[in-house]
């Protein structure tokens, strides 16, 4: 969507005009933010709000809205807005949206992209435009190895999660023969590869399925034939749920473990309560504190979910930057690099690649026919 230059100039003039009038009215109160005149900034969100994984994106938008509500209640004279861009989780759609985002001068930073695939597809665009971003949820290891200086995430990457999952399987659970399955996605394959490499000789065999596949009879035959006592699946719950269901129906009784892509109550719905029982789903995110959940419910009218607290923390970084008077892309970026705080999702500080410095991986269990989201075990 290319806006003609003269139209764009007009749009900028119009926005500036609006901004001037808005600030004019607030001058009387004399409590303008430390950063000087009000700039009417926006935070952008890029991720799936509809589509197969739309529920996750809505969790993120909900978290950002809580942060904005808190900020705007305190700064009624100079509010910050949200511009959300729905990629449906599709890297192709995300690419064109990324161009829109970097061409929007009102956007000071991006919360997102939501998934690893779209992060890899858009990272270059953001890095070249110098637009800083903080992803609440993209965990693929290679994203922060691309040399994009503006790219950050407030969540532990798949390397940390895969290593923790491996030590949980062989150490805590004492498994000897592990069958590793992945779904060929950037995320699933990345996580499964870390697990495979860490487990080494404990991997008895592997298989790769496809997203949207629903019949896994060949994979089930392979798992049973391998004599595995545990299965690790790198992928999302629509496939993960069906795999564990079909394994149980074929009489396999071993331990099923998967990562944060499967850590969703819908995993249990998909598998059925009986088949899902005892499954272990890890995530680089602990349960959000109760007062955050209450605020979330008040703002959004629904319960918070996976990545809500990370998105809240990510949005707060940008809001803190605005408060500190940092509004140019370079200033915001260096502000993020030196940012430290205790967020609702854990302590936040970034290393030189943009990864979060400390992250804890949690193991969630399906017990009593439900995913116990409130009481995970922290994996050491």
């Amino acid at each position: 969507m290319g806006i003609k230059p003269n139209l764009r100039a007009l749009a900028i003039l119009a926005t500036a005009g609006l901004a001037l009038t808005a600030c004019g009215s607030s001058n009387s109160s004399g409590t303008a933010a430390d950063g000087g005149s009000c700039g009417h900034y926006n935070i952008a969100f890029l991720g799936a709000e509809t589509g197969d994984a739309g529920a996750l994106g809505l969790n993120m938008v909900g978290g950002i809205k809580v942060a904005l509500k808190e900020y705007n209640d305190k700064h009624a004279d100079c509010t910050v807005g949200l511009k959300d861009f729905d990629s449906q989780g599709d890297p192709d759609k995300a690419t064109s949206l990324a161009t829109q985002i970097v061409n929007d001068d009102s956007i000071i930073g991006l919360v997102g992209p939501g998934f690893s695939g779209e992060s890899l597809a858009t990272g270059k665009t953001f890095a070249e435009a110098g637009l800083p971003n903080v992803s609440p949820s993209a965990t693929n290891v290679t994203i922060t190895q691309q040399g994009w200086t503006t790219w950050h995430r407030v969540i532990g990457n798949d390397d940390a999660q895969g290593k923790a999952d491996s030590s949980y399987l062989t150490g805590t659970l004492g498994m000897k023969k592990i069958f590793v399955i992945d779904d060929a996605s950037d995320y699933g394959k990345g996580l499964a590869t870390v697990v495979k490499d860490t487990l080494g000789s404990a991997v008895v065999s592997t298989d790769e399925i496809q997203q949207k596949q629903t019949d896994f009879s060949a994979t089930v035959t392979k798992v049973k034939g391998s004599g595995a006592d545990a299965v690790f699946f790198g992928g999302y719950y629509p496939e993960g749920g069906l795999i564990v269901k079909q394994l149980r129906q074929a009489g396999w009784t071993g331990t099923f473990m998967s990562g944060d892509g499967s850590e969703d109550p819908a995993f249990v719905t998909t598998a059925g309560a009986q088949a899902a029982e005892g499954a272990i789903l890890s995530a680089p995110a602990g349960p959000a504190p109760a007062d955050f959940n209450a605020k979330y419910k008040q703002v959004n009218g629904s319960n918070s979910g996976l990545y809500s607290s990370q998105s809240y923390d990510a949005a707060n970084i940008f809001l803190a930057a605005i408060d500190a008077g940092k509004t140019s892309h370079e200033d915001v970026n260096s502000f993020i690099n030196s940012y430290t705080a205790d967020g609702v999702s854990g302590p936040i500080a970034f290393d030189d690649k943009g990864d979060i410095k400390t992250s804890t991986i949690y193991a969630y269990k399906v017990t009593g026919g439900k995913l116990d989201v409130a009481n995970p075990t922290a994996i050491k």
Partner: protein
Amino acid sequence: MHFDFLFQHIFELTITGLALGAIYALVALGYTMVYGILQLINFAHSEVFMFGTFAFAWVFVFIHGTTSASQGLGSTIGLLILALVAAMLTSAAVALLIERVAYRPLLKKDAPKLIALISAIGASFTLSELMGVRDKVAAWFGLEDNLSNYVSNARDIYANPVTINPKGLFTIGDYTVTDVDLVVIGAALAMMLALDIFVRRTRFGRGIRAVAQDPESALLMGVNSTRIIQITFLIGGLMAGAAAALYMLKIGTTRQNAGFILGVKAFTAAVLGGIGNLRGALLGGLLLGVVENWGSAVFGTQWKDVVAFVLLVLILLVRPSGLLGEALGKARA
């Protein structure tokens, strides 16, 4: 390459492949019959299947509720038959709707086949997206709270709350054949047989064959071709509904785009067996299901589609009209 693995588990891989292949075959019938009489690929047929899967799950939610449960095949048989009937009727209704809205107006105007093809693709998107926004549709009528068990999270996985656990019956080689395997394969074969008899022996069947052979002569001989086309869509819909019920019995979850991949596979099965040929659809479906499983075993599951489509290309090279490449109209009475 794991040929040793394939031979060790040949019975298990074959039987589970046949069960999926039987479902492909039932859906393939819809493609093949419509092609037989109209020389037209009904791309919206995958949505006919998808609506059937939802109807099946809704019956369970309506009668059983949303609490997760698992039961054997025997104790749910009444509910299963009810859900099967609902799925068949829903799919048939959707198929008739497609015929009425997306095809008949075009056929009446004698539009080129290509236009009808585009119309079918449009109908496919419309129906799939309609299912994906059913929560918003319900909200227009102010029913989203009353119907929340049926419409909430419209784009996410929708699961039958009752998991049907298969029970082992007897062992072939090292594989214990389950009651679900038998019901899926048996029901699909029975439907095929019934349809074959219908097309070969009944008055309507003769009409279908007549229109397939030569629509204009059939018209001159007093065959109501509009009615015959309607019946063809109806039968295709009924079969897709039955396939949907068997699919839900075996897999148990669906979603708004569940028809797409299955539709592509069923269409492949129809071409493999010879499009326009009923027995070809059966053969193509079963063959495709088994080959996918064997391919998964030998090369890894990520290669299963490659194996299936390489087979399709090879067969079409040797027999361009498919394995049993004989048109619907040439079937002998």
